[in-house]
């Protein structure tokens, strides 16, 4: 807080005496918050512990030690869940705040150790069999249940990732780009459907106000999966590539409306960039295949310069419109 500055504002009559006093008081009594430092340490601690335990089990399989490790994991898991169950505020379909800053992380620890446990049971004894992807299905159900029951966004994201793994695609944010090299038609259609389904759930969550604050997480996964599947389809299917413009335009329209309604620039940026890639691909491909002349290169370059300028104007307008 810049005290001289606020004193000047007060002299100019822009802020009242009481406001100046408040500012001075706040500046004098400001506490140094180590909230994020502690949260990061806690988060990394959980990451390391669960990772370590996960490896420890496999390294010690078939020794007496591994029973002990299993017991330790079971103990951590149960005590975490017992703690969360005791501390949690009553369930509601609206947003339920965490009772303290530790709660979210203890719950994370519980869920992760539970997953380690289930994975172990599956690998060692094939408890869930090999059919119907039950080994991925059960963790998914547990994660969705925990996300809703304890109201936890991070676990919801894990559950959605698991859902996608269950239907057969890898979708953690980085893997979207890396693993899905779009070579498989089946994955593309699965992706389209999953994208639509997630967007629909997002819509329903908000409409029915069942955990309406989960809406963004669903919509975020939905929009990315859908657009990537769309573009992948466009690149993959040689003969009908312009047809993919239909779902693309539909999605752009839907999320444009949504962005206008919620004033979320994030969606504007996504639809602009994904849409631009898709439309440019179709146009360039059409030009290259349609006209077999070297001069076409100039036309393509002109197209990019012109269209990018146009989109800059569009983004600037949106910036004003959504302010």
């Amino acid at each position, binding site marked *: *807080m810049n005290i001289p500055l*606020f004193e000047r504002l007060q002299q100019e009559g822009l*802020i009242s005496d009481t*406001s100046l006093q*408040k500012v001075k008081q706040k500046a004098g009594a400001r*506490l*140094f918050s*180590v909230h994020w*430092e*502690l949260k*990061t*340490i*806690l988060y*990394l*601690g959980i*990451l*390391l*512990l669960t*990772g370590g335990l*996960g490896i420890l089990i496999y390294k010690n399989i078939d020794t007496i030690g591994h029973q002990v490790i299993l017991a330790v994991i079971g103990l951590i898991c149960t005590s975490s869940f017992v703690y969360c169950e005791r501390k949690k505020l009553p369930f509601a379909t609206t947003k339920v705040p965490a009772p303290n800053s530790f709660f979210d992380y203890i719950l994370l*620890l519980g869920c992760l150790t539970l997953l380690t446990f*289930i994975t172990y049971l599956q690998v060692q004894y094939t408890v869930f069999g090999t059919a119907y*992807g039950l080994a*991925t*299905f059960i963790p998914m*159900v547990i994660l969705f249940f925990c996300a809703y029951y304890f109201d936890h*966004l*991070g676990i919801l994201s*894990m559950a959605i*990732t*698991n*859902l996608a*793994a269950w*239907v*057969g695609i890898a979708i*953690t944010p980085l893997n979207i780009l890396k693993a899905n090299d779009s070579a498989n038609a*089946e*994955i593309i259609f*699965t992706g389209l*459907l*999953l994208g639509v*389904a997630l967007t629909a*759930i997002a819509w329903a969550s908000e409409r029915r106000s069942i955990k309406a604050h989960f809406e*963004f997480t669903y919509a*975020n996964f939905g929009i990315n999966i859908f657009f990537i599947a769309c573009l992948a389809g466009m690149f993959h299917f040689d003969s009908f590539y312009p047809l993919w413009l239909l779902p693309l335009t539909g999605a752009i329209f839907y999320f444009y409306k949504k962005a206008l309604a919620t004033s979320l*620039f994030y969606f*504007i*940026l996504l639809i*602009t960039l994904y849409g631009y890639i898709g439309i440019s691909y179709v146009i360039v491909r059409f030009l290259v295949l349609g006209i077999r002349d070297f001069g076409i*290169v*100039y036309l393509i*370059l002109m197209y*990019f*310069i012109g269209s*990018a300028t146009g989109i*800059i104007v569009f*983004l*600037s307008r*949106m*910036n004003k419109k959504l302010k």
Partner: protein
Amino acid sequence: MIAYNHTSLDNLLLKEEAADAFHQQLISTEEYNAIEKAYPVNLYSPNLFIRIGLFVLTTVIVSMGYAFLLMLEIGGSEKGIGILTFFYSLLLYGALEFIIREKKHYRSGMDDALQWLCIGAIVGAANLIFSSVTIFGQAALIFIPAFYFLLRFGNAIMGVLAFFALLVIVFYGVTPLGNMAKTIMPFLLMAISFSVYWLMKQYSNNNRLRYYQHCCTLIKILALLILYAAGNYFVVREVSNSLFNLQLKEGESVPYGWVFWIPTVLLPALYIFRGIQKKDVILLRSGLILVAAVIFTFRYYYHLAPLEIALSIGGTIMIVIAYFITKYLTPPKHGFTHAEPNDPQLAGLLQVESIIVAQTFHHTPTPEPGKHFDFGGGSGGGAGATDSF
């Protein structure tokens, strides 16, 4: 020196202060609006997402424009293209000055992109005209425009770039002087980083540098990290080994290697201690990050325990530490609190947090590749999604 109108920048700083006070409910909405009216900011600074979009699109336009030029010069010599590239960089600089003077762009994404592309074009041109430019020359070519952009546009990333370029210049400028120079290199780099940090610390709150506060913060962080890296045992050993051709065998150390274990271990502790003592976020966070570097360095050379046991024990210790600090700071003590800072701008962090969680934890059993597609069919996927609700 700075390209922007001073009144606009002053008003912007004032508005940021007022917004901060407003979010903490120290001043009323009417007061905030009155301040906004009395000190209008006419700069064009769109939000982060638009900024990213403008950055990408500007890059597209500039590279397509460059391709256009190349098409005109097809069949030309390398030198000719180089000269063309040089003129292109001048053109980019002109465009940059234009959008700032006429359109008042300030951190809009377009100015960021043009600064990067301008430096890129200069370096590219030099490489095309003079067929072999030394690393020293490249660094100098980057340093001069980056430093100029830092002063003229107050761009923090340009400050970082200039700092890195300066270090490279020193490294490649001093190394040829002989063995003595190589030996003192880590200390020289440490001294430079420390001086930069000290200068920033002294002058970052100076009124004359008020437009450069963001730059000062970022450079301070970087200076602290480089100060540590330059004295870190791992960095010193591996860099000397590969760049000075020492051909060290495993387990062998650089001469007087033990000297570097002192800063490797002590510096992070010092950062954290000073950070707590001075309530300095930058020092404290840099110190905490560097604790990881200490552990990594140590484990790289001495294996006290297998990885998984080290992970489990380390994780447990961290959880316990976080728990006890939280307990200790309830209620707040010595001016420290563990409560969330009251800042509505951080509300978006929750979403980021959930994405990080999803990114780092996905070790659930995945079906074997062969059976992958049996249940990966389209209809199965859709049904699965509705099943769980």
